[in-house]
């Protein structure tokens, strides 16, 4: 008991609006050195003027798995939802230009917690998660997806549907208008056939 208390480590990463604190122990069975964290026992995310978030290792990983790809997409100008209804964390852009972070508890009856973030607070959150992810003391395999370039189809999402549909709709409308005009305007009468003397005169040298 005393030994485990002595080996307990706390990793703390601060930004202006939030502080991430991760508690854990080195995984001695894997040969990890004292001072490192290989087993996370809990974490806390303190927000300035907001309720504190805390959870287990799975929740921290879920937070990283949605927030970091969300930030990666924002750099490309694509704001879309990450995380689904059955995942513990979800983030999406809100209508006011901010970001809506929703955290769901697995315990029945506990309502989900919604945190509205502005761009600066999101950047702070991304920085504390990056700082933890790159902390050499954290000896844990994280399943954070590696950033990859977006495909053309994914980039198209940054344009509103109306703008994306504008060109094909305009093209179809132009085609329909041209077809209607072609139907309305009568075709020109056939040219009269040339008479025989005129044809003969035309044949003379």
């Amino acid at each position: 008991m005393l030994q485990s208390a002595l080996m307990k480590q706390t990793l703390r990463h601060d930004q202006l609006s939030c502080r991430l604190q991760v508690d854990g122990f080195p995984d001695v069975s894997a040969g990890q050195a004292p001072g490192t964290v290989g087993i996370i026992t809990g974490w806390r995310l303190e927000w300035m003027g907001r309720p504190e978030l805390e959870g287990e290792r799975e929740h921290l990983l879920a937070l990283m798995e949605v927030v970091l790809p969300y930030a990666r997409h924002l750099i490309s100008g694509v704001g879309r939802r990450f995380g689904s209804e059955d995942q513990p964390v979800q983030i999406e852009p809100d209508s006011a230009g901010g970001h809506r972070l929703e955290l769901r508890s697995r315990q029945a009856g506990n309502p989900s917690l919604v945190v509205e973030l502005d761009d600066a607070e999101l950047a702070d959150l991304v920085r504390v998660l990056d700082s933890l992810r790159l902390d050499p003391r954290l000896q844990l395999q994280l399943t954070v997806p590696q950033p990859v370039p977006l495909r053309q189809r994914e980039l198209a999402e940054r344009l509103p549907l109306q703008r994306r549909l504008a060109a094909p709709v305009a093209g179809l409308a132009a085609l329909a208008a041209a077809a209607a005009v072609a139907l309305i305007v009568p075709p020109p009468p056939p040219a009269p056939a040339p008479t025989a003397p005129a044809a003969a005169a035309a044949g003379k040298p």
Partner: protein
Amino acid sequence: MTQAPSQSHLSRPLPRRGLERLDLLLLALEALDLNGGEAMVWMCQQLGFADLFPNRVELWKRRCHNPLRRACRRGPISVSETDALIRILCQMADRLYPMLRTLLSNSEAPELLAQRWQLFQDRLAELIRERMNPRRSGVQQLLDPELGAVERRHMVRSLSLAAGEGGFERLRASLLDAAA
């Protein structure tokens, strides 16, 4: 430690659009920091890129691969050079992060925030007029006070999310995006 990455995109050179965005983001940092040009050279030395960019002229020549520049340079630019420019940008954004954060925060007084954005807009416009080709529609849009506002905010937000060591991979992946 993170998941093993797919390495295929890491050796790809930046496309035209990526080079354009990279240079514009560096320009935005210069607009935020009056001494940004000098800081970029200093950062280059600090990060050990003196062999790639031995002086400010070499640094400037690589940045001139931006197709929006007045004096645009053609020809290939190596992956190691663009990676070095991205690292310089991420470290500079990290150094200027408090300033970026101030611009993005909703908790700032609206009048003060508007003044700061105006100052940034003016400095950026000055740099753009000085170095970019004004006949390009992208340049005209950036200079437009209203149309360019969305683009300027996107640039500042991108810099804040790309700041520091952790932002390097995010920004590089973004600069390698397919053409929209």
